[in-house]
């Protein structure tokens, strides 16, 4: 077969035999094991029984015999003994020879290389799937982020529009306030709404030729609802729109307001109000209060330290109780004097350390002499801002001054 000397052929056979642990089997056409030899024990086949079924004893032969082609090779077949063999099958007339050649070393070597290659491949496949998942998550996040940005822009647009509407409402509220008057006595005011639209409002007007009405109210809370109620009440008083009410009688006015503005019908809103009527011919001031801070009457010339007098009156806020009644109080205003009517936002000033300005301290400031040319109300505002430590006060700052 090979054009080499017999001794070299024999050497090659010896080499294969010594390195490949050759075993051989002979099976007849009835699939009976006829002959077995070589290093059967190495393959775990030492217990083979001759003249017995070959395929029962050698499972790897199942379905192969008779051979469809010859020679036929099954590579790297694991043997019962743990070794691995290349199984060579040869048809020989009506017999089949089976020759086992050991390839365990090559098998183990190939398995190590394949193990590393597959491990790497599985790892890279897993990495690719993770990257794909991350990409998908990133795309999802990007879309979500874009949606959030759009929502934020929309919210900003709505916020800006609402702010604009609030500013418009604030301008409207300010436009409704009466202009200062100088004769026959001076009335001036200062109104600084807090950052939100507030619930403070006030007004004054002549009821007739002798009676002058002055009032200031504070609706609970802040915002559009409070401001709307505040404007409604002010317009009601200014237009005299309370039926069967003598606007010269303060306790009657508050009683009528209480009937007209019960909190159940005002979305839970109520308000405090001080309402006074000055009778100019006699200098008498009649007044009533619905839970409002008492005004302060400061007697004496403004260039000198004055004397303060509080003007309290008993009454619960308007809207609390349908059966509420209001006390009428009165005093005489003798000039020179200044009457200060204000809301709680003018004196309930929170200091930076969290404490609140005492009412007595506010009262003391009102009694101070006012330098020539200075605006007393502006100085009061400055005082409040200094105490608060900021230009922006937490509540509406409303104060009306009537100078006799």
């Amino acid at each position: 077969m090979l054009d080499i000397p017999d001794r070299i052929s024999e050497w090659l056979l010896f080499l294969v035999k010594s390195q490949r642990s050759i075993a051989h089997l002979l099976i007849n056409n009835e699939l009976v094991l006829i002959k077995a030899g070589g290093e059967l024990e190495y393959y775990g086949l030492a217990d083979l029984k001759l003249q017995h079924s070959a395929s029962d004893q050698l499972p790897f032969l199942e379905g192969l015999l008779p051979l469809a082609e010859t020679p036929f090779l099954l590579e790297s077949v694991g043997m019962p003994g743990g070794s691995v063999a290349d199984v060579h099958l040869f048809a020989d007339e009506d017999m089949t020879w089976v020759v086992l050649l050991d390839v365990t070393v090559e098998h183990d070597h190939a398995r190590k290389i394949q193990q590393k290659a597959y491990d790497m491949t599985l790892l890279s496949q897993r990495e690719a799937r993770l990257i794909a998942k991350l990409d998908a998550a990133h795309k999802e996040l990007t879309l979500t982020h874009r949606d959030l940005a759009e929502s934020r822009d929309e919210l900003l647009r709505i916020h800006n529009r609402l702010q604009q509407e609030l500013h418009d409402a604030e301008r409207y509220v300010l436009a409704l306030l009466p202009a200062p008057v100088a004769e026959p006595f001076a009335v001036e005011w200062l109104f600084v709404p807090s950052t939100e639209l507030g619930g403070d409002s006030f007004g004054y007007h002549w009821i007739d030729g002798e009676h002058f009405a002055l009032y200031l109210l504070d609706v609970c809370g802040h915002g559009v609802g409070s401001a709307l109620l505040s404007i409604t009440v002010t317009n009601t008083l200014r237009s005299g729109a309370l039926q069967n009410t003598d606007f010269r009688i303060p306790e009657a006015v508050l009683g009528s307001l209480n009937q007209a503005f019960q909190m159940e019908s005002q979305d839970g809103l109520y308000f405090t109000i001080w309402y006074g009527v000055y009778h100019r011919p006699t200098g008498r001031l009649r007044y009533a209060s619905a839970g409002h801070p008492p005004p302060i009457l400061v007697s004496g010339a403004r260039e000198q330290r004055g004397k303060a007098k509080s003007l309290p009156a008993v009454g619960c806020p308007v809207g609390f109780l349908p059966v509420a009644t209001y006390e009428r109080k009165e005093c005489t205003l003798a000039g020179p004097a200044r009457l200060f009517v204000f809301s709680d936002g003018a004196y309930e000033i929170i200091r930076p350390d969290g404490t609140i300005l005492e009412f007595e301290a506010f009262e003391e400031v009102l009694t101070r002499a006012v330098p020539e040319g200075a605006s007393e109300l502006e100085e009061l505002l400055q005082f409040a801002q200094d105490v608060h430590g900021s230009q922006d006060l937490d509540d509406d700052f409303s104060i009306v001054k009537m100078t006799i």
Partner: protein
Amino acid sequence: MLQKKVCLLGGFGVGKTSLVRRYVQSIFSDAYLTTVGVKIEKRMVSVGAAEVALILWDIAGEDGVTGIRTSYLRGAAGYLLVVDVTRGETLEVAKSIQALVTSEIGSVPFLFLFNKTDLKEDWDLPEQSLEDLKDAGHEVLRTSAKTGEGVEEAFQALAKRMVS
């Protein structure tokens, strides 16, 4: 005694060896040990009144480089096509192997096994792919060599089809 040669086929790392070990020895290991060549196991199974010896050929997986050695398929009475549900690409590998086997040994009984179903979080196959195979007339079973789910049923179903 009736003997039937059964080949386990599929891409590499899909769990063919684990299925055989679960079925023959009732054991499972998470460690992946690749198969080179073929390992042959045997287990008896009853199909009706008949006792059948299943000769299980656990054949090295298709890896896209070496391919399946067709000599291993000679004499197979049936085969199992194993798919790793956590690696979607192994379904296409199984389909291509099925075509190869049919061309080599003709039409013999086979089943698709969707293996590693215990890894629910890592499922990488659309549910529809399983339905598509069924619609094409193939028998598909869900298996987990780890939990044993569907393993006995898979070999039993194939044995039944090979004997009938």
